[in-house]
């Protein structure tokens, strides 16, 4: 019975829950979300792929001739170790966190170095 006053007090209050897909809370500042690869900065050292605890990163080519960078989001654990070790800050984790997809292809992020200056638009590969 001890809880009755608390219950009645909350009858008139707004529910604490959110109507999620319709109401969204802003992501916290430091959230580690979807990756962004800056092709112009990358020197293709491969350190990111080497430290990745989930073996989620693949490099297309090595060194300055690097052609592309792939991260498998289904394996990725979002630890941001890749961004941390990158000597030239070419990897960035954005705050985009609603990454669920219907198949594995949809959540494989493939970045390609089309033009050296503006190649950081993610392209989702569909199977």
């Amino acid at each position, binding site marked *: 019975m*001890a809880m009755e006053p608390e*219950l009645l007090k909350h009858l008139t209050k707004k529910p604490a829950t959110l109507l999620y897909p319709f109401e969204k809370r802003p992501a916290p500042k*430091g959230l580690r979300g979807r990756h962004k690869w800056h092709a112009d900065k990358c020197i293709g050292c491969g*350190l990111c792929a080497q*430290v990745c*605890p989930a073996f989620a990163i693949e490099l297309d080519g090595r060194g300055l001739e690097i052609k592309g960078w792939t991260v498998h989001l289904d394996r990725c654990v979002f630890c941001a170790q890749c961004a941390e070790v990158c000597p030239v800050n070419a990897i960035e984790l954005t705050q985009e966190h609603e990454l669920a997809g219907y198949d594995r292809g949809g959540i494989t992020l493939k970045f390609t170095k089309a033009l050296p200056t503006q190649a950081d638009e993610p392209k989702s590969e569909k199977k």
Partner: protein
Amino acid sequence: MGETEEFIIPVGPQHPALKEPTNFTITVDGEYVVDAKARPGYNHRGVEKAMESRTYIQNLYLLERVCGICSICHMTNFCLTVEEAMGLEVPARANYIRTIMHEIERLHSHSLWLGVAAHEIGFDTLFYYIWRDREVIMDLTESISGNRVNKAMPTIGGVRRNISPELLRDIRKGLDIFEERIKYYKSLILKETTVLNRAIRVGVLTPHDAVALCAVGPTLRASGIKSDVRADDPYLVFDEVPFNVMTHDGCDVASRVIVRCDEMFESINVIRYCLDHMPDGPIRVKVPVIMRVPETETVCLWEAPRGELIHYLKSTGGTTPYRYKIRAPTLGNIPSVQRMLIGNYIADIPIVIAAIDPCFSCTDRMTFVDVNTEKNWVWDSEQLRRYSRKWYQQNSH
């Protein structure tokens, strides 16, 4: 059913009272439990074997995923183990930040447990309210580390993120709100006789049994034994921070509730002390990405929210650990819970099991999901269907 009136009830591997798969084979006589036998292992993922083929930095994040609730505990204890083996000196500020994260994790784990315990006795209203107020702590975790569950805060040689002055203010404010609420819930539980009826003299573990069965953590302290790794074997900054080891001598579920509530108040005080006394300075020392740990062995103990956690590292000088042993607190409490269940009612099974705050993912650690060859291991729906059809043909008669 045999000659007696005994009857075996399986609790698990899937059961609404268990938040993670494990199995208890319960022998009952009417509504009384006569015998209980635990069989963990359903979440065995092979972490220990996997660690032997990964570098220390990779292992850091693997260790974090041993358990979702106490991710900071496993991760930081791994850092301590490796740092001790390497003889690394960690900056003071980093240790303070680690302590703050550690105690925030205790707050969120204990309040989560309190909610689950309320749910197990069918008090869903209390469960919703506690979990609502737990969000205060989750939001703090999120704003400090970036994510809610796998915080990825500590690293070998320090911590990865600093706590800014604005954040300090937010943490203080959040703690005040949370403390107020937990005070309310504690007084509520002590007033509500219907809750106490389900908790007093239920799941009794005598102090003698608790010591003999090597119980750990709040389970042990609720049996009146004053033992806490933070006080017995201080790590991080616990040799500087004043705090009390909370015990209660009821030996039952109710005293486990009280001990955890009291521990939350102590944790709040520890965090406040750390916030006040946190020195300025660097938060990490640089370590090589592919590090070699000299040939040595180290044992590190840690007081996780659920109890004593022990990590043992044996290194032979390579870039990967030679052997890494993890013992999570729940495994230490399983013999106790088997003892506690005997003599209780079927209706008390969930709350008694929940009272040790079991975390079976921590307990079961190993397998062989190797990402490179996962095809061999993960069945697609067609394989699953074929298997189930075969199984039915064999077993349906």
